[in-house]
């Protein structure tokens, strides 16, 4: 006999579930070593039902993991069916096709039992401080170059840690203490979710989560279907070009079909996978596409399985948004961050007021690695990744925000911290005037960062840098933002390659501005005058022209 929940009981249980994953997320932020976890919340915590269908996810989870984490739990179940799971197990993988599309994201999951029966999983994904391999750049040709691959396995079996696995991980990463420390931080979060969930079930006398999951997921599914039903049926196409590699652009294509209360997305016609690490595994493509649909249709809906059931997705195997083994994917956001924009290209045809002009994303970053000379012919290896963001696109309501991470949510590293941990000197970090695409609502500005090496030993650097060829486009009559720029020692440089910096060498990164929204001639004079006074815009004639 299925238990039913009234409006009050359901709210109480839901609140408790949200508070328990948020509690686990708080514990992880405080215990993690990874800057990405602590300062950028590049992680997530989730509770799924016994079949891996998500019930509730931490409030501050970044969009990509909201889509991928429950899927990874379902993959775990394929490798370890319920009869092979026992209390005290912790499962682990960083497989890029089963996980998030690149190796540094390690997923752990713990089966939760009540009365001897598997009733749920707690799971977390977090970006590890290092996973070995070539430092993060688009350069690798195969996933083998990108670091250690951990297939789905038990890191802990019935409470007993697999010391062989731990030894292999420690030997293969540059930062063994920190990488392992973060895995333990993830385990703290898993245990906490398990403990709180069992208390909650005890309090409310729930034998399992079946009925509650059905109710929570069902309500979200209903709400999502209602939101889709409001959209006119039809098939909508969009296409965009990314910088690609070696000056060969990559074309992404999407066909989005709305029929009744369902959306189907098809990436047929998208260019093939490449032998560089910008391939975007289907798990990540899916997460980004779902995010694009959700922000336009039902931004306030809680994240769980139900919200995404009415949406399906397909991409031909071998295309760059569904690459096949052993395609590398370390920098998959260089394709993946375009995917929500591709969705906007379709939905903007029917609900233009809900989308924005293109953003100066994918996010930019500079990876450095080297060896600190210890004066004895040896030294300690180090690796750092610093992130910088471009401007957001303008929208119907207002200008795009200047220098804001989107669709990801990765904050920029403090300059003072950067100079403490890396032998670098920053000469400036400033807004790029005129980089926001003009429009009734201007695109957000990008920024320019000038960095000099002060290291006696060479520093290997690589970049995440896109939109250096194809700028963030404007919509509804708005103009494009300024493209991004990368210079080494003042010379324009291919951002997809790896370089070595010697002492005194400089790198200049100019992140792209966002696209404008609406006709620039419609921008009210006081707003334009304010932009000129602030130096966001330097040329009035060029703005309106």
């Amino acid at each position, binding site marked *: 006999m299925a238990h039913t929940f009234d409006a009050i009981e359901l709210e*109480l249980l839901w609140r408790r579930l949200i508070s328990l994953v948020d509690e686990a997320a708080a514990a992880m932020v405080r215990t993690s070593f990874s800057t990405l976890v602590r300062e950028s919340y590049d992680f997530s915590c989730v509770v799924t039902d016994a079949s891996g269908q998500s019930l509730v996810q931490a409030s501050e989870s970044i969009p990509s993991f909201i889509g991928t984490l429950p899927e990874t739990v379902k993959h775990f179940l394929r490798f370890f069916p319920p009869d092979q799971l026992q209390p005290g197990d912790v499962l682990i993988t960083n497989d890029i096709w089963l996980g998030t599309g690149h190796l540094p994201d390690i997923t752990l999951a713990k089966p939760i039992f009540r009365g001897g029966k598997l009733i749920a999983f707690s799971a977390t994904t977090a970006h590890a401080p290092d996973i070995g391999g070539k430092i993060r750049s688009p350069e690798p040709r195969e996933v083998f170059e990108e670091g250690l691959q951990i297939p789905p396995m038990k890191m802990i079996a019935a409470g007993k840690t697999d010391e062989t696995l731990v030894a292999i991980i420690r030997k293969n990463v540059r930062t063994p203490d920190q990488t392992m420390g973060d895995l333990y931080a993830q385990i703290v979060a898993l245990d906490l979710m398990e403990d709180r969930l069992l208390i909650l079930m005890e309090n409310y006398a729930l034998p399992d989560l079946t009925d509650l999951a059905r109710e929570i997921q069902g309500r979200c599914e209903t709400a999502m279907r209602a939101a889709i039903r409001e959209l006119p049926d039809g098939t909508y196409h969009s296409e965009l070009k990314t910088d690609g590699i070696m000056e060969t652009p990559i074309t992404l294509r999407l066909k989005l079909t709305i029929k009744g209360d369902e959306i189907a997305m098809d990436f047929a016609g998208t260019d093939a996978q490449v032998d560089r690490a910008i391939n975007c595994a289907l798990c990540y493509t899916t997460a980004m596409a779902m995010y694009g649909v959700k922000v336009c249709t039902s931004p306030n809906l809680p994240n769980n399985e139900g919200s995404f059931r009415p949406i399906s997705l397909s991409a031909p195997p071998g295309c760059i948004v569904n690459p096949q083994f052993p395609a590398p994917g370390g920098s998959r956001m260089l394709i993946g961050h375009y995917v929500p924009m591709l969705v906007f290209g379709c939905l903007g045809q029917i609900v233009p007021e809900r989308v924005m002009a293109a953003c100066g994303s994918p996010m930019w970053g500079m990876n450095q690695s080297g060896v600190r000379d210890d004066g004895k012919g040896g030294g300690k290896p180090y690796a750092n990744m610093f992130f910088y963001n471009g401007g957001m696109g303008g929208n119907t309501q207002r200008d795009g925000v200047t220098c804001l991470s989107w669709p990801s949510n990765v904050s920029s590293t*403090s300059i003072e911290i950067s*100079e403490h941990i890396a032998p670098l000197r920053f000469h*400036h970090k400033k807004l790029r005037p005129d980089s926001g695409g003009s429009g009734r609502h201007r695109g957000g500005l990008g920024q320019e960062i000038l960095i000099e090496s002060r290291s006696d030993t060479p520093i290997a650097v690589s970049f995440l840098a896109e939109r250096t060829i194809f700028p963030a486009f404007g919509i509804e009559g708005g103009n494009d933002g300024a493209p991004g720029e990368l210079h080494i020692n003042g010379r324009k440089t291919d951002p997809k390659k790896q370089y070595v910096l010697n002492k005194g060498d400089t790198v200049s990164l100019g992140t792209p501005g966002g696209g404008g929204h609406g006709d620039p001639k419609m921008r009210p004079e006081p707003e334009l005058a304010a932009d000129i006074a602030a130096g966001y815009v330097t040329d009035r004639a060029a703005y309106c022209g």
Partner: protein
Amino acid sequence: MSAPLSLGIDIGGTFTDLVIHDPRDGRAIIWKESTTPDDPARGALEGTRRVLAKAGVKSEQVGRVVHATTLFTNALIERKGAKTGLLTTAGFADVLEIARERKYELYDLFIEMPKPLVPRPWRREARERLAPDGSVEIALDVEAALAEVGELVEQGVESLAICFLHSYANPVHERAIAAAVAERFQNLSISLSSDIAPEIREYQRASTTVANAYIRPLAEIYLERLEKALSMSGIPGGLFLMLSNGGLTHVSEAKRAPVQLLESGPAAGALAGAWFGRNAGLERVLAFDMGGTTAKLALVDDGEPLVAYGFEAAREKRFLRGSGLPIMIATVELIEIGAGGGSIARKSDLGTLQVGPESSGAQPGPACYGRGGMEATVTDADLALGYLNADFFLGGAMKIDRAATEAALGGLATALGVGHDRAGFGVHDVVNENMAGAARVAIAERGRIPAEYALLATGGAGPVHAWNVARKLGVTRVVCPPGAGAGSTIGMLMAPARVDRVASFSAPLAGADFGQAEAIFAAQEKESLDVLRPTGADASGRVVRRLADMRYIGQGSEVTVAMPSPLTEAGVRTAFEAAYKALFARTPPGAAIQFVALRLSVSAPMPGAGGKIELPRHPRAQALKGTRAVFFADAGKMLPTNVYDRYALEAGVIVQGPAVFEEDESTFVVGPGATARLLPDGSILAEVV
């Protein structure tokens, strides 16, 4: 003593609370005056006149005035501060605007980030550069910087923030340009980042320094005016200000760094919680203050409110982390939740019952106010459940429209598809769950468990909800202090003087120069005592806390650890590992430890800070006011429940739950199974036995 009395003034958004207190016998009189937003000092002075009259004392008898205000926070929220300029290291004037580059809301494409307090034309650069260790790489070009500042002054800038890269490690350039600016532009107010918040992370430090500069001219004028007006009204005592850290300071320190006052009111509330908790013999207290629109939670461990070293002011979205301006100042740690008496109950988009964060506010207010509010609120539910007395609302000062409450709850019940009674308790229960959830996360962030805490309830709605919130948390003791509606003001009267200082100290623990660390602590203590002395605090009774921000090398957030004396590598390691384990249950294997900053706080008792509070008592014979039907979830129905006038109950009296204790501003409700005891200080301690 010729002027033995203390006067507390807490200016809030709606009301200015005043208390006059005689520390010799504890006698206290409370007064609530409407706040006068156009000139808050006016309401404060009018309230002062009234509270003195009510107490029957003369202004000459007031030996000190302690003060908290939301004035400066409001100036930040409403962007009504001074015309402020910023001088940075060349190349970094835009850091204040570029900020953290992180969204506080993932699914809002139309997001707005907080605007910087200094617009771009007023952000200027100086040629200078320090290395991360503080050594000078490029000497300061004073003349060029003066020319930049000169332009700002010409454009009407009144206050200047100076924030150079790595100045936390060496203030030399900031001080040099400040001296030159002060000499040339004598009317310009100057705030240095190395002085206001000498901590690593340029954006957060600049944000704090700019906020200080932005409110400083306002603070100078306001505090001078208030001080003068109090003195004109015949009060001989000095004026002391409540700081966000839960201590008092004198006017000149408040004028130097008013950014320390942003959370003064809530800090006083937490302090009151700590003080009543100590009186009741409780080590760990969860101070729970619930008013009309929000609830605030503060953890008190070992009799002291927990202090954090950063918070956010002027959020774009009040309850969303990351939407405000970071302020790196020692601040009593508070969690604010959108849950109050006015919180509106609605059917959510998903068909569940949602309560808050939207509030009916003062207008129209809850349906029962009869001012046209149609939606059910928490207060309406509390009324329907019998927790509140329709005939004694705000001490009988407000007439209640029961029919409006019934109609609003009826509408909600229909929308939700539940029974009328179920809807009423549902609203009460859901808002309690929201608060309990926030408390669980806050307590877990410190590696503690709720059962170790007692709940201390204040505010108009706090005592109404405390018993049921406690039960959700597994908390077995609930305290309701006397004058629960004016708790903040009482906290200020008991506050010590306090100074917090921070200095950068970046070094691995292994091989750290402890001589240098001791020298930093010694300098901080001397500086703190210099600030403390003019408050008249009893320095011989001072408590000095030596703390360090530490982490494992590679981590990006720090743990603040109490330092052993003398400092030794082994002693510090033990202290750090113990603190780390308390928070996170275990320490990572094999990782090295480092210092990031040293902190020192000094607090010392204020003369005139009282040992007890005695509010006016009512005749003992009138203790039992009557009986009314009150809903309790355990019983699943309304139970006939005794209603007491709490000020007519004597110390030592024991009352078995269910029971209701009334006072003018609030009502304390305890359920069946509770044993409530009147404590000597007038608090009611209710326990599950």
